[in-house]
């Protein structure tokens, strides 16, 4: 069965928790004890029936404040697909948690309240999703019952969103009018939208194409070198070292001519074991290769560069300033780096770019150059998410303070 990962974005006020609760409830993914607990809590808080928003109710602080602080993961399956939902927060101060959830998603479902249309938050989410390389956005126009299921209102919001998606270069988008409260067009079609001929939200999630994960030329960052157990085999071949990692592009095969980067040594793969993408390989030659190096197609290698130019999301109170000494983790290598130039800062709601930048503050996004202590083999983020991304780590506290997407 195929696995689709999607992120939901939007604020609690837009009905995000109710929508997720509705998806789980109408796909019969909720167990009886969970439904009972929700019914009891609904009653205790003075409500009636089932408040489906309580299904995804998380941490104490979130219940107290009625907001989502951190991403929560939910799982459900239908006969067609299995799904991982990353339920992400909407408030700007939790952007780092939103990008945590969106970074592994194939699709982003952006929720808006039909009465309010696109708001700053929706624009920010669409922009961040696009930035993170999510190629498919779904606009869920919720609370359609509160605008009398107005086609005109839906068309207006749809139109605004199309313009936004086009502006951000998002290749695919869909808009669905729905009502999480009564379930209309979530799993089952709504009787109130005879004018809408598209799929329900679930239909759409069940049928949209899932991006190919192992396409492109071979990229295999080495996680570790494995020495066979002594005396495990008489075969000299089996005494050789194995290089283990998770394939980040292509499929390694016996006979492949590969280059080890950054050293540039060329060799050939003579053995591949394990279930893709977690594999281990052996080489024809005794070469020097270790954790952090990348095994790549010799015919189509990544660029090995002494410095990085990347779009950086900053995730720490202490701003990023030019000259800052940091650690960068790219693929399986962590190394020292210095931020050299802050080129510009992007306003994710207006999309205006500001080139007068002193520093990059919490939740700000900008273009930054880094010099790294070793040359790094990289692909642009748009071509390969693994080879084109890195995180920034504070060398003193070890906190993860930033995330970067490598530009062309």
């Amino acid at each position, binding site marked *: 069965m195929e696995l689709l990962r999607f992120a939901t974005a939007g604020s609690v006020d837009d009905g995000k928790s109710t929508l997720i609760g509705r998806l789980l409830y109408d796909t019969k993914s909720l167990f009886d004890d969970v439904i009972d607990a929700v019914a009891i*809590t609904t009653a205790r808080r003075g409500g009636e029936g089932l408040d489906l928003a309580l299904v995804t109710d998380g941490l104490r602080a979130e219940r107290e404040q009625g907001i989502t602080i951190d*991403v929560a993961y939910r799982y459900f399956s239908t006969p067609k697909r299995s799904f991982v939902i990353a339920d992400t927060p909407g408030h700007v101060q939790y952007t780092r948690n939103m990008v945590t959830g969106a970074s592994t998603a194939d699709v982003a479902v952006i929720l808006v309240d039909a009465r309010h249309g696109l708001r700053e938050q929706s624009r920010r989410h669409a922009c961040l999703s696009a930035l993170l390389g999510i190629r498919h956005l779904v606009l869920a126009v919720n609370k359609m019952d509160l605008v009398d299921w107005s086609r005109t209102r839906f068309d207006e919001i749809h139109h605004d969103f199309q313009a936004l998606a086009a502006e951000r270069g998002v290749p695919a988008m869909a808009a669905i009018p729905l009502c999480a409260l009564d379930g209309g067009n979530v799993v089952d079609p709504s009787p109130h939208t005879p004018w809408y001929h598209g799929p329900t939200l679930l239909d759409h999630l069940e049928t949209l194409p899932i991006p190919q994960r192992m396409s492109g030329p071979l990229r295999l960052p080495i996680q570790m070198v494995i020495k066979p157990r002594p005396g495990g085999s008489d075969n000299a071949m089996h005494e050789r070292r194995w290089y283990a*990692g998770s394939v980040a592009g292509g499929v390694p095969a016996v006979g492949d001519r590969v280059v080890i980067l950054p050293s540039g040594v060329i060799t050939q793969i003579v053995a591949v074991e394990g279930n893709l993408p977690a594999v281990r390989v052996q080489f024809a030659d005794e070469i020097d290769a270790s954790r952090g190096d990348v095994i790549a197609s010799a015919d189509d290698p990544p660029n090995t560069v002494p410095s990085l130019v990347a779009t950086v999301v900053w995730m720490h109170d202490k701003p990023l300033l030019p000259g800052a000494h940091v650690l960068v983790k790219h693929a399986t290598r962590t190394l020292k780096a210095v931020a050299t130039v802050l080129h510009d800062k992007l306003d994710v709601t207006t999309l205006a770019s500001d080139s007068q930048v002193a520093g990059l503050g919490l939740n700000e996004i900008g273009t930054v150059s880094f010099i790294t202590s070793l040359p790094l083999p990289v692909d642009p983020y748009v071509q390969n998410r693994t080879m084109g991304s890195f995180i920034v*780590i504070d060398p003193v506290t070890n906190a993860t303070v930033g995330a970067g997407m490598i530009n062309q």
Partner: protein
Amino acid sequence: MTDSIIDRNAAPHPVLDWRLAELEAHAIFVIREVAAECERPVLLFSGGKDSVVMLYLARKAFEPGVIPFPVMHIDTGHNFPEVIEFRDRLVAEFGVRLVVASVQEAIDRGLVSDPGPTGSRNRMQTVPLLHAIAEHRFDAAFGGARRDEDKARAKERVLSFRDSFGQWDPKNQRPELWRLYNARTLTGEHLRAFPLSDWTELDIWRYVAVNDIELPAMYYAHRREVVRRDSMLLATGRFTPAQPGEEAFEETVRYRTVGDMTCTGAVRSDATTPLEVLAEIEQSRITERGATRADDRFSEAAMEDRKREGYF
């Protein structure tokens, strides 16, 4: 679940499908990352199905080499005897070193209060766990926890940072983007690593079925003397005698989780193989923790509170 990934008619053994292959590969990736970046990792091992799958994945991650870390059991002293026997046999078979941290010892040393002979020792595992982590200077502890188990777990990172008091701060978790795991800690701090985060109970059973993984016999239907308490079936025994008004009776049951005898309940079942268990779970309408774990029933935030203190 109307459609199972397993075609029961096609082959004697189900195969690793696309979803399971991805979950397996991701778990192996996490295990290797932590082993490569941390100095002294340890695998928390209870003998329960999730920890057995973890041990199996660890072997796969380092084949044809050896598993480069020990396993640790937090022993409540209220174990099912067959689980301890199974634990020792498996540890020997996998050639890993076993560390046992004991709740009884923590009680004897006066580190925690004794809740009495029949009280639950589940929550008390936190103290010996944190002591053992400090004593052995472990900087990462692998656990088999899954996000589908509980709403606090649903919020937790794959690599979950613990401060020098072993505490989890759910409001201030490290961002965790893509598959770039930050396994760095300062002395005294540690990580909990959860390679099975995205697995569900069904995935575990499918994986057990596909790989013929042996589990303690109590996971399959067997006859046992039980009492009905809080709408759970609890095995009677030294730590869980029938209380006044309760009637002990024999029933055919299996366990969905393995924990402290005083708070782990059984369910009525006729399933004697992983495939039969899968079929039963697909029909089941109750979550595994809700059905059989009294420790998760205290409050809406039972797990969150325990995790904050440093629990698994």
